[in-house]
């Protein structure tokens, strides 16, 4: 028995793995999540850096720049501090970025170079377990980030309502949508150069999804484009929860993200099957 196995962290892997609910037909996916946690132990530093990035943004943009900006229109003419406006968007964007990173770069690396899935598919695990396992792992990591971020936001007084607690599952939902779509797209990528397309679509979405300034400031024609992006729905949802603006209208955002995630994950599983089970 190795020291690693005896350590309490061995038990932590197990508990973390058990926390994730797995859908029917992918019950073995848990084993892949455990594998990823294990592989990550030696690289915990990258985990920590992901924790700080959105917090840095929050203080430089929200608090620093926010002092110059003052108040902004949160919709319906209600004026709020800029920091309180931008914090939810940063949380949504962090969920997106984390999910994209895990489900595209990391999955591509495993698919093309380490041949991880080839060994996994020789066991009882199937393509669906691979898709669900990788996406679940992305969400597990993302939840850690969003929880930390929300704590910082709450302590700094930028959350206005207890509904803000729901921002954590919402961030997970955003992660699900982007991780699933990202993994599906990754199966089509031929080389690292193709990832430029990911960057090209993620960066403008990060900047222009009513993240840093309100929808009303965009020209009429562009408002439709903004409202079509998934990050707009994610950011709006988190913002409504943090500000306590809860209504039936939020269902649209939830449905958008759920659909995106379900289509993505189904597609990802099919593509893994097409690529590897030839």
């Amino acid at each position: 028995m190795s020291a690693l196995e005896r350590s309490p962290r061995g038990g932590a892997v197990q508990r973390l793995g058990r926390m994730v609910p797995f859908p029917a037909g992918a019950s073995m996916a848990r084993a892949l999540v455990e594998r990823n946690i294990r592989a990550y132990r030696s690289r915990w530093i990258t985990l920590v850096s992901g924790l700080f990035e959105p917090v840095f943004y929050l203080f430089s943009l929200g608090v620093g720049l926010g002092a110059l900006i003052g108040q902004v229109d949160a919709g319906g003419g209600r004026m709020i501090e800029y920091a309180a406006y931008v914090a939810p968007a940063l949380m949504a964007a962090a969920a997106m970025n984390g999910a994209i990173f895990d489900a595209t770069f990391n999955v591509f690396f495993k698919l093309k170079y380490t041949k991880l899935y080839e060994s996994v598919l020789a066991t009882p695990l199937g393509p669906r377990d691979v898709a669900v396992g990788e996406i679940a792992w992305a969400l597990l990591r993302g939840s850690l980030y969003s929880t930390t971020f929300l704590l910082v936001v709450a302590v700094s007084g930028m959350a206005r309502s207890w509904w803000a607690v729901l921002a954590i599952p919402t961030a997970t939902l955003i992660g699900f949508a982007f991780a699933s779509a990202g993994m599906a797209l990754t199966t089509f990528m031929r080389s690292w150069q193709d990832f430029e397309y990911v960057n090209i679509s993620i960066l403008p979405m990060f900047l222009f999804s009513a993240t840093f300034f309100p929808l009303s400031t965009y020209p009429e024609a562009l408002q439709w484009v903004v409202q079509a992006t998934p990050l707009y729905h994610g950011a709006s949802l988190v913002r409504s929860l943090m500000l306590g603006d809860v209504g039936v209208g939020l269902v649209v955002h939830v449905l958008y993200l759920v659909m995106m995630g379900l289509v993505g994950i189904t597609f990802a599983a099919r593509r893994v099957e097409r690529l590897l089970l030839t």
Partner: protein
Amino acid sequence: MVAQPDDPPLIAARGLTKHFGDFTAVDGIDVEVRRGEAFGFLGPNGAGKSSTMRMIGCVSPPSGGTLRVLGMDPITHGSQIRGRLGVVPQRDTLDEELTVRENILVYGRYFGLPRSVIRERATELLEFAQLSERADELVEPLSGGMKRRLTIARSLVNEPELLMLDEPTTGLDPQARHALWDRLFRLKRSGVTLVLTTHYMDEAEQLCDRLVVMDGGRIVAEGSPRQLISEHSTREVLELRLATDDHELYEAKVSDLATRVEVLPDRLLLYTDDGDAAAKIVHERGLAPLSTLVRRATLEDVFLHLTGRTLID
């Protein structure tokens, strides 16, 4: 463990076919493997051995024919079948982000085994693979032979009934090969059914109770190594190297000395039951060979006879 004649076969393939686009990699083969035997697919590169192994391993859907593994259909019961197989793929697919021991621990989890069971087996398997000393090191710097042993150890974590080895010793030095054969013998003795592919005839002769010779996606012969040799070859072979660029010129001068003569670019092979006698006559005829070698016939000779080609080009 001796197979009973009425035991259902572990693998039963009828007209098994695999197409890749227009190309036919496996062309309607019939195979039966019984419990407890060591069964081999012998053939050169491109014969369709790996394609066959992947179909049996339920990671490649057959294009035609029927296939039953452990009595089940890979299309509908792939996951259940894979749970009872051990697979050593042609190229190692070890998890390079994990340590040697973790490779076994994590692999065991893929089979849904309890952690305590896997921990115990991991220690035994590392011992079996002679890797206990390297247990907590990363996989990447291990030698080729060590990686191969770890892949085999890993494939045993679920105590498989059927172990599938695709070219288990290709690329290893002779010492590492013999060490691996030794491990495989031990497994076979403990009752594990072995199915392996190889293009080394000595490996097939050493390890296999029964084998099929494959070429171009088809089975060209089937039987025990000894059966195949006695059916398709003489007992001995006389190898003649002559001072010529074209050995074909000498074929007619020796053809009466052997049942059959094969012409290779650098030598003649005379198939005869008494090689020494033939060699003596060659010298008497004044052919003055550069060298003569009398050896026992091998599966290589069988393959040459059946296909007109050598196993390793």
